[in-house]
Every structure is written in C-alpha cells, then in structure tokens.
C-alpha cells in the first residue's frame, strides 16, 4: 500500500514534471498534440475539483450543524442557500435568461449575488477611510515617506487632485512607473525564483507535503 500511496505519486510527479518542462521548448507536432490532450485532462480534473470542493464544503458545514458548534446558524443559512441555488440552477438549466426572459436562477444571481458582493466590496471604502484616519501616521521616516507617496498618488489619480495640484498627475505616474515598477519587479523575480526552486523540489521528491500526512 505504501508503494501506491507514496512511490507511485512521486514517480508520476517526476515524469510529468520533467516531460512538461521539456515540452515547452519542443515545438514538434507530436509534442503539441501531447499538450493538447493533457490540457483536456486538466479541464476534466478541474471539473472534478469543483465537485470535490462543493462536497467538502457540505461536509464541513454538516459537521458544524450536527455538533451545534459556535456560529452553526450561519452554516445552516449557507446549507439552505447552497441547496436552494443548486436546485433552482438545475431547474433553470443553468441559464440566467432564456430568450431575454430572466429565469429564477437569473433572479438569484442578479438580485441576491450581485448586490451582496457589491455591498461587501463597497463597505471596504468606509473601513479603509476609518483605518487610514486611525493608523496612517508618520511615526518614523519610512512611514512619512509612505504617507507622502500615498497622498501624491491619491491626488494624481483623480481629476480634482490634478486640478488642485497640476503636478500631482505626473508625479503619481513617475511613482507608479519608476519606483513602484522597479520594486514590484524585484519582488516578482524573487517570487519566481522561489517558485522554480519549489517546483524542482516537488519534481525530485524533496518536497512531499502535497501528498498529505506530513513529512516522513
């Protein structure tokens, strides 16, 4: 059993990792055909992952409701909403509208999901303003630099700011294009090198946490 649970997945990872890293550099039709087939598998696996995710969510919240854990009422609401949406979605054949007429599924999407998600995001503006007032203080030189840069970018990104301080637009562009882009690029290169190192460790079986059960 340990062979099936450990060695086989490690072998599959090693072979597929090496083959598909090499595939990128081989434009032969056979190599391209192989990539076409495998991306179809990926889509099918993606579909299964969605089913797995939904069933896992069902399981976690069913346990919370059964054990009457703290906040189990929210889990109940989630359960009812999810089951209701799935049932109505199946009934409406997954369509929000048929021949221009809104279905029940479309009604849920347009009048529940869209305003709820919009509200959640809109509330952020209020909390950002409150948090900025309470914590955006020039406590050190670094914080002062950050504060000044933030004020310039905020002014430069809106017409009123550019109207009041005409230079703020160009200054904001310079901060974004030069300072921000160079720092972001350095971070990106670091992250990418880390990703390459982690991929090599996974391909050669040095990193096995994705198999579950912790390190051996």
């Amino acid at each position, binding site marked *: 059993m340990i062979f099936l649970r450990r060695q086989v997945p490690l072998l599959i990872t090693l072979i597929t990792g090496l083959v598909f890293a090499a595939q990128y550099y081989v434009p032969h039709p056979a190599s391209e055909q192989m990539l*076409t087939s495998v991306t179809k598998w990926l889509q099918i696996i993606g579909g299964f992952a969605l089913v797995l995710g939904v069933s896992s969510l069902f399981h976690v919240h069913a346990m919370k409701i059964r054990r009457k854990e703290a906040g189990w009422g929210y889990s109940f609401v989630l359960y009812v909403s999810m089951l209701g949406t799935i049932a109505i979605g199946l009934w409406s054949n997954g369509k929000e509208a048929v021949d221009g007429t809104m279905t029940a599924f*479309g009604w849920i*999407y347009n009048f529940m999901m869209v*305003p709820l*998600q919009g509200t959640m*995001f809109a509330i952020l503006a209020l909390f950002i*303003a409150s948090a*900025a007032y309470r914590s955006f203080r020039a406590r050190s030189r670094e914080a002062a630099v950050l504060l000044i840069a933030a004020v310039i970018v*905020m002014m430069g990104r809106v*017409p009123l700011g550019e109207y009041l301080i005409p230079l703020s637009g160009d200054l904001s562009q310079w901060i974004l294009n030069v300072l921000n882009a160079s720092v972001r690029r350095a971070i990106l290169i670091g992250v990418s090198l880390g990703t390459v190192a982690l991929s090599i460790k996974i391909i050669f079986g040095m990193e096995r946490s994705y198999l579950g059960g912790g390190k051996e």
Partner: protein
Amino acid sequence: MTFAERMLKIDRRIIFLVIGLCTLLPLLYPVGLPIKISPEVRGVYDYIESLPEGSVFLLSLDFDPASKPELHPQAISLLRHAFRKNLRVVAMTLWVSGTGMADQVVTQVAREMGKESGKDYVFLGWSPGGTAVIINMGQDLYGAFPADYNGKPTKGMPVLQGIANLRDVNYAISLGAGNPGVEAWYVFGKDKYKFELGGGCTGVMAPGLYPLLRSGQINGLIGGLRGAAEYETLIGQKGKAIAGMDAQSATHLAIIVLVIICNLFYFSMRRQATQQSRSGA
C-alpha cells in the same frame, strides 16, 4: 482626555458619514472636471484603433460582481469601441461567478450596436480548469469551448471563421480582478501563443501590473474607475465611470484631509508628551 486625544478616538460612524456624503453629493450634483488621458490607457485605445476591420478581438471578463463598479464600465467601453471598429469579438470569462454578468454586458452592448450573435460576436461563457483553459484555447479553441454560452456549436460559426487557436487572435484583453486574470493571460497565453495582450484591472491591482506594462509584456493597462473614465473619454461616450469620477475625487480628498488631521493631532500629542517628560525630569 485632551482635545487631540478625543479627536484621534473619534467615533468611526462620523468618518463613515463623511465618506458617504462625499460619495453621494457628487453623484447628485456632478461637477465634471476634465479627465487627463494616461499613456497606458491610450496604449489599449490606439492598438484597437489600429486593427483592421474583421480582426479578432478576444475579451476575457475575469471578474465577479464584487468588482463590477470598476470593471463593468471598462468592459462596456471596450466592447463599444470594438463593435464600432467592426472587429470580430470573442468574449469569455475565467470566473464562474461572473458568467451571468459577462453575458449580460456583452449581449447588452451588442444589441445597442446592432450586432448579431454568432456572426459579429460570440460569448463562449466559462469552462472549468482556470489557467488550463488558456493553454487549452491556445492548443485548440474548439476543444476548450465546443459550444458557446447558449449551447450553439462553435465549429462553423461565421465569427470564428479562420480561428483555430489563440495564435489567430489579433488582440486579447483580460479585465481581471484577481487570479486568473491579466498575469495568467500573459504567462499561459501571450508568452507561448504570441498574440498582443492588454489589461484592465481594479484600482487596487493596478500598481502590481506596472512591471508587465513597463517591460512590454502588456501593451496597455486600464486601471480602476479612473482608467474606465479615460477610455470613455477617448471613445467619446460618457458612462458610469465618468459619472463616478467626481465621487472618487471627493472621497480621495476626504481621506487625504482625514489623514492630515490625524497626523496633526498625533504630532501635537507627541509634543505635549515630550514637554511633560522634560518638565518631569
């Protein structure tokens, strides 16, 4: 408790009220300040403008309703521009929760511009697999989307004539609110299949995409509501983005004033504390 201390601990509902009023009043009484066009937004506009009639324009609406206020106006402006230029529009989404919204915006603009589904444009909908869908489309478009969102087979559709995969796309734009989004379209799409790519994103995400812009990995970037307002100005059709710019101006200014006030009180408190410790010593 001193006045400065009291002001620093002000009830947050007052701040909420200030922000609420700064949003509401400009929407009710718009000022309409002029909007300056940035080079990154002009990059997208100029490229679409340079495309000949019948070119293939792929628009991936990779966002959900949470980002609707910023990305919906961008989608409307881009679609209006593409339809006006008589480009063949291929729309899709990589975000399952945004499928209905993407369908609505594409259908609404197409109807407004007198365009026909299957002939002038197609909405492919969503397909599982996340970034794998981009590779799949790069290899075989019909394998990734055998049917469009309405269930019509994609093979043989007049709008897709001569298109086998992403290599046949003249220009692609991802309007992304996260992952998969603009970066994924570059890494898994443009880099291998060599089509020109532009991006649109929320205001929060824009600074993170500037390295891609500066290196030419994307040829233009529409950032947030401001970017959408700039695009509306460029195509000469005022929409929700331009209407929202006054509100955004007012809220930005309100936050700046709040931060300055908070720092003034903070420094006055710090000076008081220093003076007290000196007199105590």
